[in-house]
């Protein structure tokens, strides 16, 4: 099994100190975890990951809900737009990262030109500690928006039309329909996307590795990249494994929520 066994192995490694080369793994107990908790770099990585996740998931869910409400219609132009916003989802993150790096080029990038159109000062995007993480959020929102929107559209189509017809008779204003009917009826979809997007955001790696290498000044370092660096660049296998266990813990908590919810959903049917 390539899923179960590695996880136990990772637990075991996280209690050892090992550099990948030497024949002996030294048992160190909880030392790695202690070191992690006292490492400012790790704490920053952790908070970066959470910050990035909350921002990405929040923004993309709200935007995609509105896009879905708008695009949930028949007609070629809506089909075209659905395809357009979905297209980043099937493109390799490598391409997307490189493309956006080019557009975010502080000197010759397209985005600074767009800013100048609106009379705004140029941004350094990835090169500045204050803007780098927002730049990564921008890229990932751009990538997942189409997927979320289409899932929302699928959810919207499963809401019975009679509910809206009744509301139309009562002349309910649109925002009331949104908060009283649409959002509650969509709650399974919202919950599903929340879980999936959160778990995915925890695992962000490609954009970090290609676009920023965790910099500047550690401001965009995230958990998977931290594990990768400590494992493959610094050869601190035990230490990296301990960070892996912590990531697993986060994903596990979110996943357990998912299962509890799924069980409930099946129950109600």
């Amino acid at each position: 099994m390539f899923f179960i066994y590695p996880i136990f192995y990772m637990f075991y490694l996280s209690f050892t100190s090992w550099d990948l080369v030497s024949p002996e793994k030294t048992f160190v107990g909880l030392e790695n975890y202690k070191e992690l908790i006292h490492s400012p770099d790790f704490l920053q990585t952790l908070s970066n990951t959470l910050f990035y996740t909350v921002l990405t998931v929040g923004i993309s869910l709200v935007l995609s809900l509105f896009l879905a409400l708008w695009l949930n219609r028949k007609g070629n132009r809506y089909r075209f737009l659905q395809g357009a916003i979905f297209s980043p989802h099937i493109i390799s993150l490598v391409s997307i990262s490189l493309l956006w790096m080019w557009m975010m080029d502080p000197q010759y990038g397209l985005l600074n030109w767009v800013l100048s159109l609106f009379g705004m000062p140029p941004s350094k995007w990835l090169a500045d500690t204050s803007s780098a993480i927002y730049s990564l959020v921008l890229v990932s929102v751009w990538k997942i928006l189409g997927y979320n929107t289409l899932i929302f559209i699928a959810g919207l189509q499963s809401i019975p039309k009679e509910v809206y017809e009744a509301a139309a008779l009562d002349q309910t204003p649109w925002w009331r329909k949104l908060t009283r009917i649409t959002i509650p009826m969509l709650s399974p979809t919202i919950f599903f996307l929340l879980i999936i997007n959160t778990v995915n955001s925890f695992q962000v790696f490609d954009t970090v590795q290609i676009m920023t290498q965790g910099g500047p000044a550690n401001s965009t370092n995230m958990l998977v990249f931290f594990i990768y660096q400590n494992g493959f660049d610094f050869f601190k296998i035990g230490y990296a494994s301990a960070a892996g266990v912590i990531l697993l813990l986060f994903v596990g908590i979110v996943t357990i929520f998912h299962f509890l919810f799924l069980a409930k959903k099946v129950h109600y049917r």
Partner: protein
Amino acid sequence: MRKILKPVEWIGIAIVSLIFLFPFVWMMLTSLKSIDETTVFPPKWIPSSIHWENFVQAWSSGPFLAYLINSIFVSLAILVLQFITAVPAAYAFARYRFKGYKILFGFTLIALMIPPQITFLPVFIQMSGWNLINTYIPLILPYAASAFGIFLLRQSFMQVPEEILEAARLDQASEWKIMWKIMVPMARPVLVTFGLFSFIYHWNDYFWPLVMTNQDVVRTLPVGIAALKASEGGVAWNIVMAGNMILVIPILIIFFFAQRQIIRAFVYSGVK
């Protein structure tokens, strides 16, 4: 009211398509420019002359033929193996209640939930312990069984009416034959959907090939193209974008022809 809404909607359509499609156009335009034209501000839109040699330069900056062959080989090998393993597993999960069913299916669900980004380090150590790093095995084997594929196929196998199977059994068809001759053809749309999903995912994958290899001979296109940026120092954007095109074009062609199928493939994975 209607008259105001129409133009507003058209502006919305224009803005949204611009935001999502223009970056790809920009990639294409940049890939055809000379290096000087990428370093002007404000940006120059249309290249004054078309520089096809950017593609040649990108292609010859590394063993791109090997990358391409590896990409095709790895993605297809994974696809074939996933079919071979998913079909019997899904059939068993859909039609039989055997001993350990719950545990095995539980494992499948857990595998569905645990991303490779968590297990890569122990898997790498396992593989390097067996001296398999820089072979195709660590690229392909961990993906040989797809929990997602099993799950998806099981759903569609469960919808095949039991009567058809009983009729086949009366005709003394073996279970094996029932599976390949009845179940598989009936689940064809789902198989196509899953095939597209799997191929695109592994064609695009960067993380796993990066982690599991450190030599060019077995590396795939995404890793090669990401390295292109490093070797060009991040300056020659026209070359980097040309490399990017090599990676993106096959997927865009597939997307163009099978857009509805692909969207279904990916959205299916969500809605289940």
